[in-house]
């Protein structure tokens, strides 16, 4: 088991290392932003944006694996699609938890039906649906294909999150979109870069790990099924 998990474990350790460097940068190096941006609460940005990026990345991996699965079925593609959806749920949960904590300080409310928030919630629900579908149904072919179709659909919804601010306005900050003012302090860019790097490593590690898990589980179920068959044949 140690050999099989060396790759993802290495990525996890690397990601943890980058996060360890990120935390002091966030709390000790980056300046506090202006009051209109939430003041000290703006520092949630350095986790909130990387978490959203993790959801995009995992959702993209789910999309690729799902599309390939629909073209030609294989256990590996199905496992990776399922893993991508699970990690996208994790990233989305982090986004939807961290954002309202910042919003309470900046806007005075935890939640609004802002276009970006609403589309982010919708995307998260699509990936939750995929995870629940795979968790509570059998491992039959129709269920796998249905989940793969949802995985393809979910990716297009991620684009809506990204474009929602330009298309429909709203209250969500537009710091990183075209036309936005950007980060006016170089240490802010450093913290964001570290966060994105750490989340890339973490997302790839988790998708890799979960893919291995699902492949192992599928293989084990096949072996057990075969064993039951053999027992039935021999009358044991």
């Amino acid at each position, binding site marked *: 088991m140690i050999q099989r998990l060396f790759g993802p474990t290495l990525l996890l350790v690397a990601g943890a290392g980058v996060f360890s460097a990120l935390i002091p940068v966030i709390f000790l190096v980056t300046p506090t932003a202006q009051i209109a941006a939430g003041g*000290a609460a703006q520092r949630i940005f350095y986790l909130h944006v990387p978490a959203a990026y993790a959801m995009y990345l995992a959702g993209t991996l789910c999309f690729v694996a799902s599309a390939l699965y629909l073209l030609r079925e294989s256990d590996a593609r199905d496992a990776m699609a399922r893993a991508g959806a699970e990690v996208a749920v994790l990233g989305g949960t982090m986004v939807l938890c961290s954002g309202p904590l910042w919003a309470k300080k900046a806007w005075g409310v935890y939640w609004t039906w802002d276009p970006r928030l609403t589309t982010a919630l919708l995307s998260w629900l699509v990936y939750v649906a995929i995870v629940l579908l795979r968790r509570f149904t059998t491992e039959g072919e129709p269920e796998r294909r249905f989940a793969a179709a949802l995985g393809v659909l979910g990716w297009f919804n991620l684009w809506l999150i990204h474009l929602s601010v330009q298309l429909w306005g709203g209250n969500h900050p537009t*710091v990183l979109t075209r036309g936005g003012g950007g980060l006016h302090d170089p240490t802010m860019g450093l913290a964001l870069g570290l966060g994105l790097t750490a989340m890339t490593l973490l997302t790839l590690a988790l998708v890799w790990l979960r893919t291995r898990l699902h492949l192992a589980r599928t293989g084990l179920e096949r072996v057990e099924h075969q064993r039951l068959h053999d027992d039935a044949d021999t009358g044991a």
Partner: protein
Amino acid sequence: MTQTREPNRVPSLLPGAPSPPDAPADPASPMPTPPTAPAAIRSDEVTPATDGRAASFVADHGSAATTSAEATLVVAYLLMWWLVFAFVWGTFRRIRRLDTRLRELESAQARRLPEHDNGAQT
């Protein structure tokens, strides 16, 4: 001090949106003016919020009001880390269980093979 911002730019679905202030009471009137019901926000009064939202982050040095959110920050980061660690721990735990089960099956298979061989010979 908690920083609040009047959420008057968002659509009317926002719960707890502030209602317009009541009209001032006439000091000569003996009866208090009954409170008016909050006016419903008409669709033509709702405008997309384009001003007031942050389009950039700039450093704000020396402001006392920026230090009130540190508890929120710590809670947010702890919550995120808890989520990630719980996910990773759960994954490794399931992998361990699968490995254990696989080893059981392999040893059962290995025990069965000599029995099959004996059966074949007789």
